[in-house]
């Protein structure tokens, strides 16, 4: 058995940690590249959303490298994400690739657990006692690493607009993340965090700068994965913007575990409530959250909103229509960037530069 999982932001770091700690053999798909995307595009329909193509590309590359078991988080209605597996399975089958599929239930319910039980019947025979015994420990390690990655990334978002040497933050963040990745024991992980944080904090910074504050909202894959959004977060940071986002693994996981009462998840409830001023019903996925977050951020004094969505994304298309109105009503600049497989990194850079310039004019005029 060789397990594989798709790329999404820094997810590979902690998925790897789970497999490694539990001693389960795994294959990490190569870092998402132009080739990955080309593979995904070639084997899907033009109007299917970009995350589908990226994930499909990851799977194809991993299976070609010898992986045989795909682990994927399941999802449900109403958007297309919930049927990714149905379609990806038949595409892989048609391509003659062999795989087994393991769904991680998106919400804990008896039905989901039963399905999981059915799917793992065969797989469990291949697991050793050690694998099973160490699995909870692996999950714990994975969770710790996830939190470490998120803490480092959040720190990077904070210091990036202050950096004196452009690109320095990104370099240091990569290094710190690789330390987290390499840590094999809880002790080593602690050390990685202890050294990683100052690496970013102690970087040469210009503390006199007052950065713009911009919130990134939108569909979660496009917000969380720098390959999909061509590094919007980093680009904005390097243009002197302090970026905030609420799409983090921990938030989404806590939400699906129905730990909504935790402070972080309840922010989502606030966003949802705020969206009701414009939207009479839950459209699904992040649509209402995107709108609600834009509204509340404008009240919190943010300078602008960047809205990311994949081309033809069903819920976010609705959101983008409404966000135009939100921007007008609340006098907050909103930039919607629609992402697809086109090579648009240069265009995104230009768009963001223009956006930041506009923020500057707005500030001067005020």
């Amino acid at each position, binding site marked *: 058995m060789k397990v594989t999982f798709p790329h999404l932001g820094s997810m590979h770091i902690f998925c790897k940690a789970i497999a490694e700690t539990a001693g389960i053999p795994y294959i990490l798909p190569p870092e998402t590249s132009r080739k990955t995307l080309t593979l995904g595009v070639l084997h*899907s*329909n*033009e*109007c*299917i*959303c970009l995350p*589908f193509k990226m994930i499909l590309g990851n799977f194809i590359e991993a299976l070609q490298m010898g992986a045989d078991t795909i682990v994927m988080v399941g999802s*449900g*209605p*109403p*958007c*297309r994400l*919930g*049927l990714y*597996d*149905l*379609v990806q*399975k*038949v*595409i892989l*089958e*048609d391509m003659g690739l062999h795989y087994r*599929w393991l769904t991680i239930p998106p919400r804990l319910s008896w039905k989901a657990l039963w399905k999981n039980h059915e799917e793992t019947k065969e797989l469990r025979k291949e697991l050793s006692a050690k694998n099973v015994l160490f699995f909870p420990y692996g999950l714990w390690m994975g969770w710790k690493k996830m939190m470490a990655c998120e803490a480092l990334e959040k720190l990077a978002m904070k210091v990036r607009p202050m950096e004196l040497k452009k690109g320095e933050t990104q370099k240091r963040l990569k290094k710190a993340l690789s330390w987290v990745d390499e840590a094999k024991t809880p002790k080593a992980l602690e050390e990685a965090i202890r050294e990683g944080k100052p690496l970013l904090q102690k970087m040469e910074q210009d503390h006199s700068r007052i950065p713009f504050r911009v919130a990134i909202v939108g569909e979660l894959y496009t917000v969380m994965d720098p390959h999909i959004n061509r590094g919007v977060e980093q680009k904005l940071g390097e243009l002197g913007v302090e970026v905030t986002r609420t799409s983090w693994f921990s938030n989404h996981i806590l939400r699906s575990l129905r730990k909504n009462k935790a402070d972080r998840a309840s922010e989502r409830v606030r966003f949802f409530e705020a969206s009701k001023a*414009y*939207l*009479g*019903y*839950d*459209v*699904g*996925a992040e*649509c209402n959250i995107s709108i609600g977050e834009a509204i509340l951020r404008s009240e919190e004094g943010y300078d602008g909103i960047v809205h990311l969505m994949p081309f*033809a*994304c*069903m*819920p976010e*298309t*609705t959101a*983008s*229509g*409404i966000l*135009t*109105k939100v921007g007008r009503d609340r006098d907050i600049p909103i930039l919607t960037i*629609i992402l697809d497989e086109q090579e648009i990194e240069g265009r995104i850079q230009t768009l963001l530069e223009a956006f930041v310039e506009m923020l500057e004019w707005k500030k001067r005029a005020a």
Partner: protein
Amino acid sequence: MEEKGRIGIPRALMFYRYLPLWRTFFERLGWRVMISDGARQKEKIIYFEDSCLPMKLLVTHAVQLKDKVDHLFIPRLVSIHRTYIMCPKFRGAPDIVRIATEGNLSVIDEMVDLRERGTSLFQSFLKIGEKLGASTQESKRAFREAEKSFSKFQKDWVDRVNQLPAAKLFETDVPLPPVRRKAPFRVAFIGHPYNLFDIDINKDLLALAKSLGMEIITADLLSEKEINREVSDLSKEIYWSSGREIVGSLFHFLSGGVDGVIFLTSFKCGIDALLQEFIKRRLKVRGGSSVPFLILSFDEHTGREGLTTRLEAFRDVVEQGKTDNT
């Protein structure tokens, strides 16, 4: 009865299934129903959001009506089935229209969600009636009559599709012309009802098909059971009611019973894009189908020449298949 005012119904989306029901209900309550004319020309389409063509047309039609009516009827169709849901865009449609019409126009956006226990279409219409100032008794009577005229309409549906031009399909006062001679080819046309019957989307494909000697078969002929049979063994349940109907009826007709199958989609329709890939691949994995299969994807382009060529070629394939088999 004295006219209470005007209610506008945009000629878009589920208009293409439910108009007779909606219209009768409002008319029985004493309202005059105004229906938008249609875009007909590409320049008239309003690009309010970067959505699929059917959604853009909804906005276009709504804007066309906004100064002529007292209320605009755009129900929030979350689910029109006990178990399955509509496309998520339908959930935000009334809000999008409200913003696009930029005024204080009243939009009747009563929610229809039949998934929840104890809900029914009747209840949604009771609430609509209430909003329009009708008593429960009046609404009840109007709804009963609406249902009656709708089921009568549905009974003639297959004949209407084949014998009336698309523009007159939903004009209930147009009587059915006498049956013409039988068309030589039976071809199934599958897709969302608005893709099938909105001539702004499909450039009046059905008229073209009829002129080429095709009898139009639609999924309306199939029972839910027949559709379920085709999709019950999937590794995951398709949760959109329209998507289920499309996949189920495509597999049903591709396994025989008709001379050809045509699948109509709109560019940027999320559901169709995903399921189209699924259908193609699954068909391939299962060894293909002997029934000729054509997928037509529509967007704002208005030229019909390409469409004509493809449909003529398809007719030739169908004809060839038919002579080979006999």
